[in-house]
């Protein structure tokens, strides 16, 4: 009801409508510290926060933001009576430090419906200010099934660690769990069969029966038909893949590291490590238990500088693939990333993103 009230002016509109932030703030559900300011809705996030917006059935949100920190935002929809989320349902956007605008399309989330609510996971530490929120609301005439099918069909590819093994299998009709490629493949087979029958008829009953005509038919029409269908599949794939392309033309290696990892906080810290740590250093990465990715990737980004990873205090630490061994006493630089460990005495921060992500050097 609250959501309807907030969106009432736009209940029957097809355009984006501005959501009054002052009214919204008291109704959003979040475990982040929130306040309304002159700039907009300010969220203070400590590592991660959840955010549910009282905008039932909203199709898209355009959020303008400002921040001095780096965030990874994962979003999906939830149902009012069931807030459980399957991690696979999330889509993500990155918010590097600065100001900008992001568009979240909730139609391509499994639970999107007239009652569903937008749900965001905000990963990062610091303040994130939404200066304006505009919503493309659903209305009584919205065909949720049809729009969902279309949204899923054109949903941008989500690159994950598993993408090296397989890309997202796209549904032609999500409601029927009918895959796009299966559908296109069937159409191809049907048309190819029709073509084959026509060519057979032409070959046996047509006016020209010379071998050249036969060759022309076989070597002309079948490849053309195949190429057309393959091109259709290609275009669909590239439309979905294009938004992900890292299209910088002449970035430095540090800029690539900073901008092109999925989590901008990781990217910024890795780039800072790449820039600030001297080649003769002995580096130890303090990582978080369960985080198999970040510690070894920090070491990789500063290679061949001697580097090891750990989640607990030891006398000897090991590096990538266990090939490097460093004694605790030899460590002169620590990359700290969401670790439960404390910085040893004698180390001073030389670069800091926040209290969970920094680089410290032995004095």
């Amino acid at each position, binding site marked *: 009801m609250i959501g309807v009230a907030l969106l009432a002016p736009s209940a029957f509109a097809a355009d984006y409508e501005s959501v009054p932030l002052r009214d919204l703030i008291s109704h959003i559900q979040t475990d982040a510290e929130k306040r309304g300011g002159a700039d907009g809705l300010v969220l203070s996030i400590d590592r991660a926060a959840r955010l549910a917006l009282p905008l039932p059935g909203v199709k898209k949100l355009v959020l303008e933001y400002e921040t001095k920190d780096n965030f990874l935002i994962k979003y999906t929809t939830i149902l009012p009576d069931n807030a459980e989320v399957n991690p696979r349902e999330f889509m993500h956007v990155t918010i590097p430090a600065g100001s900008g605008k992001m568009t979240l399309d909730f139609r391509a989330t499994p639970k999107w419906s007239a009652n569903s609510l937008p749900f965001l996971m905000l990963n990062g530490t610091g303040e994130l200010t939404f200066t304006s929120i505009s919503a493309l609301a659903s209305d009584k005439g919205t065909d949720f099934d049809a729009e969902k099918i279309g949204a899923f069909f054109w949903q941008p590819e989500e690159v994950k660690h598993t993408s*090296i093994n397989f890309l997202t299998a796209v549904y032609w009709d999500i409601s029927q769990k009918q895959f796009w*490629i299966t559908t296109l493949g069937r159409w191809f*087979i049907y048309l190819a069969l029709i073509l084959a029958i026509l060519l057979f008829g032409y070959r046996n009953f047509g006016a020209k029966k010379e071998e050249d005509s036969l060759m022309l038919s076989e*070597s002309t029409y079948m490849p053309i038909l195949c190429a057309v269908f393959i091109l259709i*599949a290609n275009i669909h*794939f590239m439309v979905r893949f294009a938004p992900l*392309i890292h*299209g910088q*033309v002449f970035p430095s290696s540090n800029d690539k590291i900073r901008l092109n990892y999925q989590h901008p906080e990781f990217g910024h810290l890795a780039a800072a490590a790449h820039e600030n740590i001297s080649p003769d250093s002995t580096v130890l990465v303090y990582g978080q238990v369960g985080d198999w990715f970040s510690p070894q*990737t920090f070491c990789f980004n500063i290679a061949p500088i001697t580097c090891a990873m750990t989640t607990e205090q030891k006398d000897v630490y090991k590096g990538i693939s266990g090939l490097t061994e460093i004694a605790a006493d030899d460590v002169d630089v620590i990359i700290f990333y969401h670790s439960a460990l404390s910085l040893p005495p004698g180390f001073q921060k030389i670069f800091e993103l926040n209290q969970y992500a920094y680089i410290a050097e032995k004095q």
Partner: protein
Amino acid sequence: MIFFLLSTIVLLAVGYCLLALLRISQKHLGADLALSWFIGTGYFAFAYMLVVFVFQVGFNVIASLIIIVLPLAAFGMWRPKQKNAEQTKVSYLPATKRVLYLALIAWIVAILPLIFLHSKNTPTNTDDGVRLRAYTPFLVYQNDFRDETDGLILGNGIMPSFVPALSWQLGGGADHFHINYFVFSSFFFFLLLLYMVPTTRGNAAQGIMNVFLVLSIPLLLYHATTTYMDIIYILPFVLGFVFFSYYVQDLKLSDLKLTILFWTLTCFSKTEGEILALTGFAFLVLFVCYNYFKNKKGLNKQMGVWVLPVVIYFIVKDQYAGNISGLLNILTSVGGDMQTGDIAGTEAVVEKAKFTSEQVWRTFSHSFLASGNFGILFYVLLFNIAYFVRSIFGSRLIWSFLILGAIFFEIYYNGVVLHPEWTINQTTIHRSVIVLAVLASVFLSMLWTREREKVEVEGE
């Protein structure tokens, strides 16, 4: 990037000298340039394998200089004098259906820059990439050769381990994006060769169709933007397949040399590369025997020299990474090991027993026909095999078709028998199918653009 470009020029120069000395020039600058990349990188990797593991010298500037200068000096001293030094005149577009091929070219030209940008800008972000595939060049660069590292370097492959390190040596520092550039460069020259080889033989239609179809494999395009090394063994294997198909048709010595060369290069990346290469060599031996018994044509004795590198490669690798025993383990991991009670073999069989034939069918059919990792390529392939079955079985295309079948069988055997825990249960089946998709692309373009052959009738 400048130092990577410098290393590219060096490797191209080395490769160009070698291809002239080996008399395998395609007599066209574009084709020779692309060939030079593979020959130069393969030679560099192979030479350094000998330097490091046989002569125990290590990765250093002097060794690199000697390896690079040797072919240049040999070219200077023994450059073959060609009777006809003219470049092959080619028509880059087919004579007919130009609108269709221009449309395909437009697509190719639109896609390639996007792949290039994403490839050069995306930092390594996969577990295997960080721990192994993109890490072994750092071990080489640091001269870190010991028992613990030798196995990793040789397991990842000498090509991806040694070649990127050259640009770091030239630049005096390591930049892991050079590994990205190495992958994309290999992909680019592969596409160039796929286009130029048929075009220089008067079949531009096949060249364009080759590139278009290969660029229609989504998972391959994604791999071309990462630092995984599956693509590094796929490319030379497919090129070997192309030259093998030409050799089967025309029995030219130069095609045979290039087949052996490319299947040797296939060994230089990952164990999968070795298995594919051995499959290719098995078919080459089969065809040679068939040709001998059918046409009483034997092999030129020079070919013994051409297979020497791959023999040396396996001997050295076996010494330092237990290679041959490793391959035998893979081949016998279920049957033989069950008898000895080996745990790995037992687990594989136990896992297999959990999977019904319906699950196996569902996994394979999803991968080939629904996942989208290969577009609709396999629908097109299956239909065209059925449609052109008489042409395939009545011509020498049968040899190419048999290789496709053998690779499919190996994927099936690996996925269902050897490692179902990683394929039926998990996801690596799609990655193992990429090579089949690329082969299928090349096979389809051969099928569509071939000249009409006399159907070989039994007893003819």
